[in-house]
């Protein structure tokens, strides 16, 4: 049995927004307009996405769903690349890394239907984007802060890969920690989103759990591949052919 809320119930929930606005106003948090704007924007964005997904599910089929996920990959690559700007060709690195999820989709765990491809693909893209973002930030920080150590290794005849290896390892480890921590505490601190949604939609808890385990495992695989590949590719863009660190570029704002 499903317990889908009506649009009337959704409208009723604006009372929570009104409560937040009233409280923010009373405490002079200077966030009243922000709260209203955020609430309105969330509703509009979700309504728009829901309408588009409806069309995708009904009309576009599997090719349309894959195109949707592909667009998410490009967008995620841009966002992750933006965080690593200042690195040579950061956007290319990020886009290339997030594209690795295509491999995970290809092994057939996800049923080739739009209703599975789009939401699960979105979760994987999001996880990959976070891993790529964290990796690029760590690589950038290493180049900014550990330049003397990297150059000290280069001065002893070590290759760019050898000189940068301690930092690529540290960057990949840092990028993986959130996904590993999330997997460790999943279900203990809060029920994860996919499982919550399925249970609310009336699916049996043990069936919802199967979906959630698949999602967690896919996220662990994707984030690991993304973090390792991002840091691996970044070393090629951070150094030139003569095993020299490229000059520092404009710092992140």
């Amino acid at each position, binding site marked *: 049995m499903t317990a889908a809320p009506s649009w009337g119930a959704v409208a009723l929930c604006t009372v929570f927004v009104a409560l937040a606005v009233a409280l923010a106003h009373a405490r002079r948090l200077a966030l009243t307009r922000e709260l209203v704007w955020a609430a309105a924007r969330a509703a509009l964005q979700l309504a728009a996405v829901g309408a588009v997904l409806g069309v995708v599910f009904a009309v576009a089929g599997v090719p349309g769903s894959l195109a949707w996920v592909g667009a998410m990959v490009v967008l995620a690559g841009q966002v992750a690349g933006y965080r690593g700007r200042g690195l040579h060709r950061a956007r290319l690195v990020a886009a290339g890394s997030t594209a690795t999820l295509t491999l995970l989709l290809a092994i057939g765990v996800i049923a080739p239907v739009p209703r599975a491809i789009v939401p699960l693909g979105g979760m994987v893209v999001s996880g990959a984007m976070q891993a790529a973002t964290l990796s690029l930030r760590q690589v950038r920080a290493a180049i900014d802060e550990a330049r*003397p*150590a990297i*150059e*000290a*290794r*280069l*001065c*002893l*005849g*070590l*290759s760019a890969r050898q000189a940068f290896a301690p930092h690529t390892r540290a960057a990949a480890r840092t990028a993986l920690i959130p996904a590993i921590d999330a997997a460790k505490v999943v279900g203990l601190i809060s029920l994860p989103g996919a499982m919550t949604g399925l249970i609310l939609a009336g699916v049996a808890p043990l069936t919802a759990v199967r979906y959630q385990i698949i999602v967690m495992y896919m996220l662990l695989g994707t984030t690991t591949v993304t973090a390792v590949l991002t840091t691996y590719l970044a070393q090629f863009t951070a150094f030139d052919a*003569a*095993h*020299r660190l490229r*000059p520092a570029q404009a710092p992140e704002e």
Partner: protein
Amino acid sequence: MPFSMTDVGFDRQGTPLLDGIDADVGQGRLTVVTGPSGAGKSTLLRLLNRLAEPARGRLAFQGRPLHEFDVLTLRRRVVLVAQHPVLLTDSVAAELRVGRPGLGRDDAGLLDRVGLPEELLSRTTAGLSGGQSQRLCLARALALQPEVLLLDEPTSALDGAAAQVMLDLARTLTAAGTSVVAVSHDRRWVRAADSVLVLDRGRLAEHGPPQTLDYLPEEP
């Protein structure tokens, strides 16, 4: 002739940091590069092991253009020790092996050459002073048995006695055929040099034996 520079120039973001450098570095000689701060001295050292690339002119090593050498091999033959010591491992013994893992070595002998006691071999690098770290970095470079040693302000973190050990070591190395190029503001190094390059605002102001120079750095 380890190095010969002909009209060498280097730019950073379009601004010339070095320009029109014509100079030679003699085999088994102590060459000291001196001059006011910001003159381009450290940049000149970085050109010699290809941590930087000249924008103009010809830079040759053993008679061949520098860029014709495999860069990793070149950096084992021409080793640069930076001004600020950076230790790369947790232990003194491991530090000596960074550039040449797996080779037979005389770790105690390396420490002795830079005036550090053998007992340090069992220590971690965490407790070393700035001066000890600087000397350990030099020992790490010597482990590669370089043909040319590039030293950027080798005595900046050392007291008078330790600085003298460094200078004596440089002279010992040159006597054994190693060429040493040192950036230094220390008058003792300038006076002890076989040849001095005086840089001023990126140009070679003077070049020759120390007794022929007008420029002498301030007393330390």
